[in-house]
């Protein structure tokens, strides 16, 4: 019998959580060590998964399936394909790096790392579950540790941010739950299995209603304009490593849901809703860009830039072309890397200056040469400099959407312009100009901080130069998905 690698990915962090719970809470170093080792093993497992992934197949691989609740026909069913493989890797990588970045957490260390590992289990499970019942459970499991991680270790308005995040997402997922049950009772035979559900032909009207129910759940998570208001609050208040996971992984759960559930199950409705999603995407791209430009809080700026960049994912989703889909998937991965890195950089600065007010900095590059270089590198990647990752995916999205929605594509280009504006303006205010005398004794990044950023920088460059490194995982699945949707193969 081969090793059930997917179950290991999901439950190893959970086992780690119990291990930490059993450790006395004075043993802070041991607790950190356990969390680091567990996330490192998860990262290695995900690398092994990448290596053994069959690049020619558009089908589900590494399936694990056991009957769980026979009365409801619920299976413990995991699997991986082109839609999830990159997200698994991104989750594993960011979990490991954010775990290293969590060494700065000094109070209630035991609780922090226990909840952190529970969060990793939830995220992994969400991306691996192929049974809607199981998917919903993992989706909800993510919420609870997130509430505590923001609420206990967050900033001044942490309590408000935590409950707002929780209630927004919970409301969305309640509608999703109704949708899941409606699918179950309208499928023949009754099933929660995503692969079997995809064979059912639902009527157009039914598809429309269910698409909306799931849309509420996913759009709040992405977040799509106008459901985005929880995001800046949650990001600003969350501690750095949690912001990294929030932006890098949790937001992707929403767009992943579209690819995994809404599109294969409601193909006709999806096409019908395409233009509306496109409009929301363009609004998000431009609105997010403008609001990011107006921010004086570093973290809030990055948070709104996420709204803008996730708009590109939605735009790619809305066009039903292979280039657009590939671009959207790649943008999900790239955004995870780039924004993850940006939040880490914000954290580095905040740890030293204890402020995120952009106007209070200035001339820091003199004092922090390495930090300055990395910040510029990541900013350029985020604003879409060719040869870095961000460019490839945004370009693909625009290329894919141009033949379909000409005007929307042109409007979205404004978003790229805006990204350049707010990111360069930020670089100018933080790094350039005269050194603010307050920061004369600020120290440069330490080795650990550099180590957390280097893997992300390498990946960003690699995908920028050789996008096939990532695209090869996606293409067969995207082709298969487009066949279901009957979209153009271009």
């Amino acid at each position, binding site marked *: 019998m081969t090793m059930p690698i997917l179950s290991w990915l999901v439950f190893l962090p959970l086992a780690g959580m119990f291990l930490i719970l059993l450790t006395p809470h004075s043993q802070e170093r041991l607790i950190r060590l356990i969390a680091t080792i567990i996330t490192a093993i998860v990262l290695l497992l995900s690398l092994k998964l990448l290596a053994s992934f069959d690049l020619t197949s558009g089908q589900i691989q590494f399936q694990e399936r056991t009957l769980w609740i026979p009365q409801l026909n619920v299976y413990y069913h995991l699997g991986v394909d082109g839609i999830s493989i990159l997200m698994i890797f991104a989750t594993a990588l960011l979990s490991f790096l954010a775990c290293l970045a969590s060494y700065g957490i000094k109070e209630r260390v035991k609780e922090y790392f226990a909840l952190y590992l529970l969060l990793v289990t939830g995220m992994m499970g969400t991306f691996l579950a192929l049974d809607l019942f199981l998917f919903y459970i993992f989706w*909800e499991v993510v919420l609870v540790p997130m*509430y505590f991680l923001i*609420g206990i270790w967050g900033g001044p308005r*942490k*309590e408000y941010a935590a409950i707002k995040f929780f209630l927004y997402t919970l409301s969305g997922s309640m509608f999703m739950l*109704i949708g899941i*049950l409606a699918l179950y009772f309208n499928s023949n035979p009754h099933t929660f299995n995503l692969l079997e559900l995809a064979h059912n032909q639902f009527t157009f009207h039914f598809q429309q209603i269910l698409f909306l129910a799931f849309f509420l759940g996913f759009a709040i998570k992405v977040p799509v304009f106008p459901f985005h208001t929880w995001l800046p609050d949650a990001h600003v208040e969350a501690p750095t490593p949690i912001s990294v996971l929030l932006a890098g992984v949790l937001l992707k759960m929403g767009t992943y849901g579209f690819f995994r559930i809404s599109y294969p199950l409601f193909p006709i409705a999806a096409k019908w809703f395409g233009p509306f999603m496109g409009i929301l995407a363009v609004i998000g791209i431009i609105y997010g860009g403008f609001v990011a430009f107006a921010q004086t809080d570093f973290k809030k700026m990055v948070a709104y830039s996420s709204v803008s960049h996730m708009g590109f994912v939605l735009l790619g989703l809305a066009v039903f072309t292979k280039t657009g889909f590939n671009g959207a998937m790649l943008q999900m991965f790239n955004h995870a890397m780039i924004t993850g890195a940006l939040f880490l950089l914000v954290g580095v600065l905040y740890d030293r200056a204890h402020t995120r007010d952009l106007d209070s900095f200035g001339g820091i590059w003199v004092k922090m040469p390495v930090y300055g270089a990395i910040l510029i590198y990541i900013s350029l990647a985020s604003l879409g400099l060719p040869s870095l990752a961000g460019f490839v995916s945004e370009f693909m999205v625009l290329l894919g959407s141009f033949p379909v929605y000409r005007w929307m594509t042109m409007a979205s280009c404004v978003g790229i312009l805006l990204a350049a504006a707010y990111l360069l303006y930020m670089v100018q205010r933080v790094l350039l100009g005269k050194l603010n005398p307050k920061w004369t004794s600020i120290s440069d990044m330490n080795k650990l901080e550099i180590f957390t950023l280097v893997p992300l920088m390498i990946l960003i460059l690699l995908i920028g130069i050789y996008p096939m490194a990532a695209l090869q995982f996606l293409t067969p699945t995207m082709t298969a998905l487009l066949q279901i949707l009957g979209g153009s193969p271009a």
Partner: protein
Amino acid sequence: MNAIDSLYFIRSEIFLFGALLAVLIFDFFVQEKKWLGILAFISIVIAFLISPNTFPNTGLFFNYFVLDPFTFFFKSVAYLTIALTILSSLVYKNISEKFKGELYVLLLAMGPLLTIMSGVTNLLMIFIAIESVSLTSYLLVGFQTFDKRSSEASLKYVLFGAVSTALMLFGMSLLFGSTGTIELSKIGLYLSHAPAFQSIILLGMIFLLIGVGFKISMVPFHMWAPDVYQGAPTPVAAFLTVAPKALGFAVLARILYVAFPFFVSKWSHLLSILAILTMTFGNVIAISQTDVKRLLAYSSIAQAGYILVGFATPGLFGLQAVLIYITAYLFTNLGAFFTVLAIERNLETNQIDSYNGLSERAPLLALSLTIFLLSLAGIPPLAGFIGKIYIFSAAVKTHSIALALAIAINSAMAAYYYFKIVKAMYLSKAQNTERFTNPLPIKIVVTAALLGTFLIGLFPVHFIKIVEQSLAGFAIF
């Protein structure tokens, strides 16, 4: 079956009756009341173990009482609740020791009474069972005559109860007058011939539902519930929110499915509206509460609203949902009240503010209460989630979109106030860092409730199977 043969099948009730007399007599001699509690606990366990393992084909006592898997299910619910409540009262400080003997007697008396309530076959038995359970409940709330709050609660309970009993009796008289029988199944048979006086029978049914609605704290007959649950001693409140309520639902099932299957479209509409009202009202009022016990009281009203959804969506699946929800609710709500009881022992108050920083003072209790609250909110993978899935499914399966949406909105609302308590325990700072002490009985009951909450959530297979078997003999239309 005649009375003599029937005795064999109610041996555990007879045994309990003997046990309660024994406890009552020992109460005069025994100084250490905790031994009475232990005796009471052991007797309820023995009573459960000696329950007959076969079910008779015919009704007992000339068909005044029926012992079927459905009865047995609710009997188990009642006995389990009583057993855990007795254990938790052993160390409860706000009942003075000299009264504890009476508490155990009253709790033991609840065993046979609730069992009778679950096996009713005619209007007379419904009246007797509900009335005797109610009287015992009034006593349980108010037996500490010196405690003003609990006396007030008890009086309120009696007054509301008396009015609803009167209405229920009036309804029964209408039913008897127009159908000429008090047997539920004969009423059902009579209605199947599309007789005259249908509107009077309908009116009778509605009055009957009011009487039962009072027991299950259905809006608008819930007014007594918050005061009673807050004013009653905490173990009694825990008991009252679970056992009599669950049995109220059992009676409701008997009435609706045996006597009124031909009015199904009428009562399902009526109950849909009442279910939505009950859950919305309970949740909206709970949001602004500052006392944990009162908050849980309103939450239990809301939970009754969810359970009513299973009746508003008639059919086997709806009833399964009711039974599964009750099982999940039993462990979760008892657990929540027991942790509150343990915290009350140390803090001597139930204000949410006083829970601040509890996660540092009593990490395990705080964690347990959080798990119970998450389960009440329906977060997976806990028992409450399985219950909620079934209730949701019942609504979706019968295309009751309004009900499904109401549950969805209510669940989000409920999460807000459950998290108010979680927030106090984990996010706020403690004023004082003194650690808690918890005696063994508290640890046992909280652990038992936790086990139930997790097992139902993670391995629901067996619980669902038990529920399915309990409904096997139940006539669905």
